[in-house]
């Protein structure tokens, strides 16, 4: 389990670096998917299986479509991968930053350091499920507002992307 978690954490950092180092949108989306998936694994490994499932279904299910479409719109004949000169400099700088930061904070690290503390043992429901339930029972209005925000987002996206000939963001 420890090795798996270490692998996941390394995968998360590498995925983030892969996004942040400005490769072509194809590869950036790939890096984002990798880091999101690995992040779900970390959440599940540390006791947040419900949140992990939600994140996996919604984030990777919904956002992947958006990534696919935006990558298709921003298609280029010679995409810049992580080996390209403009990208590899960023990769190296970010990796060095991660190593330096890791060296500085090495002392505060121990195994099982961020397992969820509350609602861990002797509870019928786990921390993440009961947390979601808490939020919507104490703040029921939040649910209404969230629904309104989703509706608003729909209108915003429709209004921004409406019109076939008026697209400014796409390269066609």
């Amino acid at each position, binding site marked *: 389990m420890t090795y798996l978690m270490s692998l996941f954490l390394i995968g998360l950092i590498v995925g983030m670096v892969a996004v942040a180092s400005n490769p072509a949108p194809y590869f950036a989306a790939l890096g984002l998917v990798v880091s999101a998936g690995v992040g779900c694994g970390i959440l599940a490994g540390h006791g947040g299986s419900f949140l992990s499932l939600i994140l996996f279904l919604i984030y990777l299910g919904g956002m992947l479509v958006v990534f696919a479409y935006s990558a298709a719109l921003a298609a280029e004949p010679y995409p810049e991968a992580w080996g390209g000169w403009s990208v590899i400099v960023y990769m190296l700088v970010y990796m060095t930053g991660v190593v330096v930061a890791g060296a500085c904070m090495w002392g505060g690290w121990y195994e099982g350091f961020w397992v969820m503390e509350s609602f861990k043992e002797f509870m019928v429901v786990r921390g993440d499920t009961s947390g979601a339930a808490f939020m919507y029972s104490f703040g029921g209005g939040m649910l209404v507002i969230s629904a309104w*925000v989703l509706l*608003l987002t729909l209108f915003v996206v429709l209004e*921004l992307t409406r019109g076939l000939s008026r697209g400014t963001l796409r390269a066609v």
Partner: protein
Amino acid sequence: MNPYVIMILISSLGLGTTLTFASSHWLLAWMGLEINTLAILPLMAQQHHPRAVEATTKYFLTQATAAAMILFASTTNAWIMGQWDINQMSHPITTTLVMTALALKIGLAPMHFWLPEVLQGLELTTGLILSTWQKLAPFALIIQIAPNVNHSLLMTLGLLSTFIGGWGGLNQTQLRKIMAYSSIAHLGWMIIVLQTMPTLTLLALITYIFMTTSTFLMLKLNQTTKITTLSSAWTKTPLAATLLSLTLLSLGGLPPLTGFMPKWLILQELTKQHLPLTATIIAISALLSLYFYLRLCYAMTLTISPSTNNSSAPWRLKNTQSTLLLATSTVLATSLLPLTPTTLAMLL
């Protein structure tokens, strides 16, 4: 745009700010900020030309970054301190993070680069909303967290903003960019006095809103967005041009006008807090801003011939713009100084 959609967007713009005002919980405040950002995006890209879409994209990216930082800092705070209250956020790391994020949201100096470019891509009315209404929600949060924020951070943000606002505006010929730099400079004045007397921050924000509303609406009335057209805009409405120059001088902070009031009181407060060096520096930085306001005044009004003739009046249609808000805000922007005691008593 469909009027129903406009109704949804404008009411959500109101809802976002109201939610942030009303909340004591970081999650709800963050939701309010996000609703605000989302609702203004289609209004910004209303014309669908590349410049507006570019401005919208830049605005979205910066605001999303700032909101993500706020969410990160507030969850970190909940993790470390075990509570979500806005005005009890006390951990130094999280308060610094949140203050930086809010500075990015309103465009304070080291994080100001998006503001002139975004404002330049918008229409004057949307620009007005962006520089007035969109500042309110972040300011509500800033005032609530202010007592626990690092003092040097606020001083640095404030001084840098006034100077960069002044310097940035010097070489501009586009009026919306000048208004953006003027916004940055005014925000610096508001931040510098945030910890010693938050009332003055509010006062400066309110007077800034009056002055900038008047300026934007007057520019819209004249349909002018750069200095070259400004110099021939007075022929349409010579009296409004005169009032615009008064409003601009009020933004610059000259004594018999409204803009002098917040600057005066802030300098007094800084002196009372034994910060004479800061007070002197910030007073000097106001001169930088005054220079470009004066140049606008010169281009617009100071070269009008004393006896105007009919031949310089251009051919034009009857103006259909409603001028009620313009009239109100111009009166407030030019002649509020005698009411200083009442205004202070109202806010204190």
